[in-house]
């Protein structure tokens, strides 16, 4: 089919803008969700004054951060100090471009529910995530502050260590689907609804938990929020940051959470496929695609809720425990999972 290049470019630009705005909105409302749920867990209300149920709170937060004075301490390494939050946020925003949100529907040669569909999508996600470390490392180093430096050192060691078990936990899924393309991975899981999801039908529940735990460590979320442990390091790597630069780190953390939830959904919970398989009546292509996006959003919401729930429940663990857990427990377990999955595949004879 001949595709008009200008329509193609226009539609793609539109798609990028829509997805970015949606992602930033999701970030804002994930913050609200966190404040509300953590509030309820700690037996208080959380934000409830601005708008109905505090729904306008994120707007006010954003405005407040935007209007605050942008302090620049005198002893910082200026270029790197400014560069660090930009690296963190852009890496967090780029990775969403690989994520497919719904079924494969094209309009004028442009896929509606995905920004870019590439063969090595999963690898690019991993790569972009691993480049995101520099944001934190440089922020800590350029701040010229001992707490920031300690936070940055901790975080780079933590992220590099947990990246190993994160990557290895995905190998089982890749062995099953024989592709790095996220669409292929989802398509393989959509045959029989819930039963063919990788977490159930692919026997990848061990990998799922390894992924979840190491992803929490990658995103510096509780109980692994060592890099910014308030009680020991004031605020870790972003102690010296204020106003918009602080907001950029903040948004990067929540955007990473959303990407992690999307990847967990795609790899282990069947992406946009319905848990009921073909049992539900087929309501035509439009209903099917909207339903797909609904299931995807529901699963992602579940993971985001889990993030908040874990943060509200579990205490922070000690740093040596964290490293020991990553290297001595998660990594061997991930390797065992790979061996078990490949043995199973070999015996089944695919």
């Amino acid at each position, binding site marked *: 089919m001949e595709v008009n290049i200008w329509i193609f470019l226009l539609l793609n630009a539109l798609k990028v803008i829509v997805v970015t705005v949606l992602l930033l909105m999701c970030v804002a409302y994930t913050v609200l969700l966190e404040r509300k749920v953590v509030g309820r867990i700690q037996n208080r209300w959380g934000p409830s004054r601005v708008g109905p149920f505090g729904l306008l709170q994120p707007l006010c937060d954003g405005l407040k951060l935007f209007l605050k004075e942008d302090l620049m301490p005198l002893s910082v390494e200026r270029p790197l100090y400014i560069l660090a939050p930009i690296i963190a946020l852009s890496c967090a925003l780029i990775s969403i471009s690989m994520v497919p949100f719904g079924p494969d529907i094209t309009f004028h040669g442009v896929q509606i529910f995905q920004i870019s569909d590439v063969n090595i999508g999963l690898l690019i996600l991993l790569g972009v995530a691993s480049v995101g470390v520099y944001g934190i490392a*440089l922020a800590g180093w350029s701040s010229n502050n001992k707490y920031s430096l300690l936070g940055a050192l901790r975080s780079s060691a933590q992220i590099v260590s947990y990246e190993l078990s994160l990557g290895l936990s995905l190998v089982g899924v890749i062995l099953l689907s024989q592709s790095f393309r996220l669409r292929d991975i989802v398509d393989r899981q959509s045959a029989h609804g819930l039963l063919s999801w990788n977490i159930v039908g692919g026997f990848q529940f061990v990998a799922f938990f390894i992924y979840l735990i190491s992803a929490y460590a990658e995103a510096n979320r509780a109980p692994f929020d060592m890099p910014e442990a308030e009680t020991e390091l004031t605020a870790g790597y972003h102690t010296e940051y204020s106003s918009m630069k602080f907001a950029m780190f903040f948004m990067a953390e929540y955007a990473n959470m959303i990407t992690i939830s999307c990847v967990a959904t795609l790899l282990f919970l069947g992406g946009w496929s319905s848990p009921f398989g073909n049992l539900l009546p087929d309501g035509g292509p439009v209903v099917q695609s909207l339903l797909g996006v609904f299931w995807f959003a529901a699963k992602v919401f579940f993971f985001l809720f889990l993030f908040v729930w874990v943060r509200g429940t579990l205490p922070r663990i000690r740093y040596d425990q964290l490293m020991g857990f990553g290297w001595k427990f998660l990594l061997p377990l991930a390797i065992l999972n790979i061996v078990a999955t490949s043995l199973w595949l070999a015996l089944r004879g695919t």
Partner: protein
Amino acid sequence: MHLVLFFIFGGLCVAGALNLLLQRHPINSALSLIVVMSSLAVLYLLLGAEFLAAAQVIVYSGAIMVLFTFVIMLLNAGREERTHGSKAAYLVGFPGAAALLALLVYVFLSYREQLGGVVLGEYLVTTSDLSRVLFHELLLPFEVTSVLILVAILGAVALARKEQ
């Protein structure tokens, strides 16, 4: 299109490498090396090596260079100072390097007719092509590298640990 992409990312590579040479602080050099490596990943994509492009970003930019920045931060390495040694290196280094460059460019330009060109999307090595060769014909070297990595890990731990 291809030529434009090549010149953008090739230019980024050269600019990053020159910056590595000219900066006096190791962390700036490390950052410019990251720029070089990431733009090389794009060039690999242009050459149809998609798995290598991803591996370049994950292994080089994401792991090796993180290790470098980690060590620079850990040792709190400052700006380097000029010494008498550097003067000798300037005298020998620049002419030597220029001669090497001239030789290589001459060789490549004299063979440019035989070499042909790169057309985008004409030759693509997928991950399965790569793994088929790696796990059939080259299985033994692959296994040997795993031993190498194990030895490297043990060596690194033994070297870096504090003596009792």
